[in-house]
């Protein structure tokens, strides 16, 4: 067993633990904090089904962003959809046997080319941070670093797909091993190691960074509340105390 293998195995266990526990903690915090007042933003649905539809459109189509700024929408959507397709293709490294749908030629090819959309979207988003003075004003160092990290992940991944193929079979043995708590050797390919290190970094910072927008969007009261305050009384536990 090489030191590199042990290092990466440990890194992935730590990163996974931080990601899962960190997110669970945040989700628990959001869920247990009351929303004492009804504050849905127009156009607010008047039924639960309407809220689910609204949330669905926000998450899949970025509806509000489409209304606000077409450039951010194009780049943001390209990036997120590209990432989703790429991630889906990656499932085959973690499954045995692999779901049919993941192993389809088409899905695998789409997953490869979606990486271009992903990186193009990221570059577009990054460019705005330099080119638009308003966006430049609100950009922090961490905003740049997260973009850099994601672009790094995209480029190292693309490098292995399109430039210098890595030992996919070896990688899969390593990954499946991790999932069964066995440590198998990781192929010693610098591109692969860089890719994995960046991915682990992303997992680690997820629960302590603005990446929290992913769970946050579902808990946003201005988006997830039903507009029915006259029909149903809405009382938070701490507000009920005031009635006494």
């Amino acid at each position, binding site marked *: 067993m090489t030191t590199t293998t042990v290092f990466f195995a440990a890194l992935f266990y730590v990163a996974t633990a931080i990601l899962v526990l960190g997110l669970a903690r945040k989700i628990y915090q959001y869920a247990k904090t009351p929303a004492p007042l009804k504050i849905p933003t127009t156009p607010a649905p008047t039924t639960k089904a309407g809220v689910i539809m609204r949330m669905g459109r*926000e998450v899949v189509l970025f509806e509000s962003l489409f209304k606000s700024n077409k450039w951010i929408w194009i780049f943001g959507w390209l990036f997120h959809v590209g990432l989703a397709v790429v991630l889906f293709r990656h499932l085959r490294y973690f499954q045995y046997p692999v779901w049919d749908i993941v192993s389809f030629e088409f899905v695998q090819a789409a997953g490869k080319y979606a990486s271009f959309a992903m990186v193009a979207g990221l570059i577009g988003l990054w460019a705005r941070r330099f080119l638009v003075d308003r966006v430049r004003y*609100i950009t922090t160092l961490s905003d740049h670093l997260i973009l850099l990290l994601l672009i790094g992940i995209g480029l190292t991944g693309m490098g292995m797909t399109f430039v210098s193929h890595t030992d996919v079979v070896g990688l899969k043995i390593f990954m499946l091993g991790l999932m069964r708590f066995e440590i198998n050797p990781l192929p010693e390919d610098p591109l692969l190691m860089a890719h994995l290190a960046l991915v682990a970094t992303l997992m680690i910072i997820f629960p302590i960074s603005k990446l929290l927008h992913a769970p946050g969007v579902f808990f946003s*009261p201005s988006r997830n509340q039903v507009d029915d305050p006259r029909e149903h009384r809405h009382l938070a536990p701490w507000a009920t105390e005031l009635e006494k």
Partner: protein
Amino acid sequence: MAGPTFETPKLLDDTATLPIPSVKPGAMQGVQSFIAGDKIQEQLGYPGELLPNWKERAIERMGELLQKYRGLQVFLDACVHCGACTDKCHYYLGTADPNNMPVARQELVRKVYRRYFTFAGKYFPKLVGAIDLTEEVLDQWYSYFYQCSECRRCSVYCPYGIDTAEITMAAREIMDSVGRGQKYSNEILGKLHRIGNNLGLPGPALEDTLAGLEEDILADTGVPVRLPIDQKGAEVLLVTPSADFFSEPHVESLIGYAKVFHAAGISWTLSSTASEAGNFGLFIGSYENMRKAALRIREAALELGVKRIVVGECGHAWRVAYSFWNTLIGVGAGAEDPFGKALQQQLDHRYKQPSHICEVTWDLIQKGAIKLDKSANDHRIVTFHDSCNVARASRMGDIPGGQFIIPREIIKASCNHFYDMAPETIYEGTFCCGGGGGLLTDDLMEVRVKGALPRMQALKQVVDDRKVNFMATICAICKAQFTKVLPYYGFPMSMVGGVHQLVSTAIQLGSNE
């Protein structure tokens, strides 16, 4: 005291919207409203002056609010600095001060939140832009959180619905609880608690005014239209902004409501103890103060034994009534506590509780219970300004978007010439008048005038293209703000008026005496 002078922004020809300005850091830093003195603060249960240990107390209060308000917690975590909201605030568009961009306004609080409440901010403050709470920060908060009218336009456009108004309210509550309050809002709220309305009008003054108005209407129309007060057993309790009793053009709408009730034969009353619909508790983000202000209405309704509660033309009052009254005081359906239940039994649930006066009037128009002669308004070419709290934080009628449709239908039923302003400046995208949220004070005139710029530009287009000479609104703050600000842009102040002012002109009073 003469305030500092400033330049009124210029309007352009042939456009409804101005180009987005380049950022001018610090442009509005020094512009602040007067700070509340100790008497004003103490009435609301806040410290009279800045506490010696204000920093610790402020952080502690922030922690409490984070546990009480899910929205605040999520909004402080979720922003990705995408920039989609940067050009959505009328105060940014009018002043170019980058701290008036919603995301930057939020950052003023978020930077402090990160420092004291997040791992990244505690250990890597530089990296994520976290800062200590200092006197300088407090000063910035005081400037920029009183340059936000809590209009929620930014919330419509944010991919996560991040509502800067919620953050503004939290910031104001934190400042209040360490002894840094705003004179204007807090003084008004204190008057409401003490005397019963925002203007501080005692009951007898109110009765005099109403009697005077009855005489005016009689002289004008020959019909004895009543404006009753404290009438037990009336069907409707009308709660309206107190500006409706005294200010122009507000009072024209009050006359309009009276005529509607008269023509439809509905018995109604005002209440001398609950004569105010406005609730500045909202503006300072104080649940307790908002609840206390609303309780008067529950008491008056129970006392007078009314069957319906109707709210007059006031934007934030309608938001509080529509969205929060049921929560705060059980006006609405579904309450299970003893108070709520007593009220529920008394109220007539065939009607929405509470109702907006526009819902009442539109219903009566549809039923043919009141008749309107549109030609009486032929001298007016009308446009409608959607007030922010009505547009983005409330509703009317049964369908989503009723708050846009119903006032427009009433206007169209009352006049022959109606034109909307450009689509991106109305409905949920409407621009604020520039004076809401506790900014309607002369100390903030520069903010108000500049903040009105986007609305003025859209108005100019319909004035130029359609010869519009009347902008109808259903908000007391909009009316007061526009009468003051229109002249800065070369429009006559008489251009603004209420929707029920149009109804008042057109209504056929008949003779159902």
